[in-house]
């Protein structure tokens, strides 16, 4: 199943819409609640990142029986040093963005912590692509 959502850069009032839609679908699929939680936190973080840093973006969501792949493609300034951005405490968010409670510098590391797989690629001056993969199999202690 394939879904797409548009993200508008700089508009925080709409941030979270796609995450809510994805959450609803995961609940419909009866996915383990711990996985739902991790997926939503990672996706929301990624969605807010696009709003905070990019001009516009698209979320491509693909569900199958084993997993969901959430790919966020944005047009924006890109990330010059991904490795540095992956370190805890690093933030490129402007002070206005930080005052709104976003961009506390937890973005990518927090996404990595919650996602089963996280791929980030970026081209400075063009944009960034973040791909979050979550697997649905229930944790062993649940069986």
């Amino acid at each position: 199943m394939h879904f797409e959502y548009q993200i508008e850069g700089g508009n925080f009032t709409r941030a979270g819409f796609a995450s809510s839609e994805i959450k609803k679908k995961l609940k419909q699929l009866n996915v383990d609640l711990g996985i739902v939680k991790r997926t939503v936190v990672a996706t929301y973080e990624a969605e807010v990142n696009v709003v905070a840093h990019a001009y516009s973006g698209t979320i491509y969501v693909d569900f199958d029986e084993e997993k969901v792949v959430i790919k966020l493609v944005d047009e924006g300034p890109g990330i010059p040093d991904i490795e540095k951005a992956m370190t805890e405490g690093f933030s490129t968010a402007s002070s206005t963005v930080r005052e709104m409670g976003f961009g506390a510098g937890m973005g990518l590391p927090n996404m990595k912590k919650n996602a089963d797989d996280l791929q980030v690629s970026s081209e400075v001056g063009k944009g960034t692509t973040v791909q979050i993969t979550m697997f649905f199999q229930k944790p062993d202690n649940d069986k």
Partner: protein
Amino acid sequence: MDGKYFHHALKFRKDVCIGCSHCMNVCPTQAIRIRGGKAELKDNFCVDCGKCYRACPVGAIIVEQDDFNQIFRYKQRVALIPSILLAQFPEEVSLTQVSSVLMELGFTHVYEVEHGVEVLKDSMNKHIGEHKESRPLISTFCPAIVRLIQVRFPTLTDNLILLKPALDIAASYYSKMLQDQGHESEDIGIFYITPCAAKIAAVKSPVGQEDSPITGVINMDFIFNKVYTAVKQGFIGKNTCQLPSLDPLKASGVMWPATSGEAAHMAGRTLAIDEISNVIEFLEQLENEENQGIDFLELRACDESCAGGILTSSNRFYTVERMRKRAARADRKEKERNYRYVNPGPIVKYREYLEESIFISKVQPRSMDKLDEDISQAMKKMKRVHELMELLPYVDCGICGSPKCSSLAEDIVQGEAEIIQCIYVQRRMEHQGEMPAKQSLEIMQKIWGREKFEIKDND
């Protein structure tokens, strides 16, 4: 859906229902459908918030209550009253008057629920301090909210504070106290005067507890009418001289069932949110993002919390104002070191006993969103829902008998409805010559009943 999860105190009377769908349109969990001209409740979706009860123009939704006369099966008949009850009456009506009418009705004891707060408040703060790993922690005060979290926000069940509400603590205390005075436990009946349906449901099928310490529940509107009639008729009460001297309720107890009643006494950063749509909006957001540093959440299903309960009689804003005044008086007396107010009351002597059984077990998620237990079936159904949504108008008109286009799509994949129930689909089919007018009329009659389509003589 497998099995029935909940006991519901709200009952739909088919003989009275006119199938107007007002209830369906206000239900915050989309638990109501119209079939055969009558409202039907989807049991597992309903959280007993009572919005439908208020919306019904003909009184077809009733709140089931225990027969009042059952209190006489017990030698010791305790009326447990919330502070909301006294606040239903104009200020000149005193607690002594209210209690004396309750005694006249047949109760042998009257006790205010919020004395339980003396014990609960400290346990809650301790719990919040000890469970730093889950934030924000959510109060289990309001049973409709606990059920809402179970069905709509299952990922948040781990955030619920697993402590009994003040009501259960007060009931356990009173029962134990009477037993210590030499009464047999089977002679003791504890009856709660409830402002809402959710509390009834929580007593009849408690979440996270084996059984409730409360024997029965009596609706507050019933008691209000009895008491107010007696007061209006100048009744003072022949049992007045036998009245137990009621412990004075502290300000925190008086305000506990009002909005911010709990939040005001919890350490750390707190939020108090009332009215179920506000709560849903907030929890939707809370599920998405990392917590913004909130330690404690007080969530109540009714506007103005219990003052807005569906079984209350007084305007909720007046009720809260009277509670505030009473709380201010209690505060003043405590500051004047009036000894009865300084003394926290006999319930704290039972603190250890009450704290032993204060915990409830984990609250289980019961997601109503899941389309199927099996993921590949669920995936198929989700695809089908998505396809159906392409055909539906996103108008949420409710003419199909389901509250929203998305509910109709879900009902269809669960085999509970058909796409041709959609008036837009019917019109398209008629236009294309695929549906005769007779058929569309029949479909409408099946949903809304025959009567609504009878041609009436207007001479």
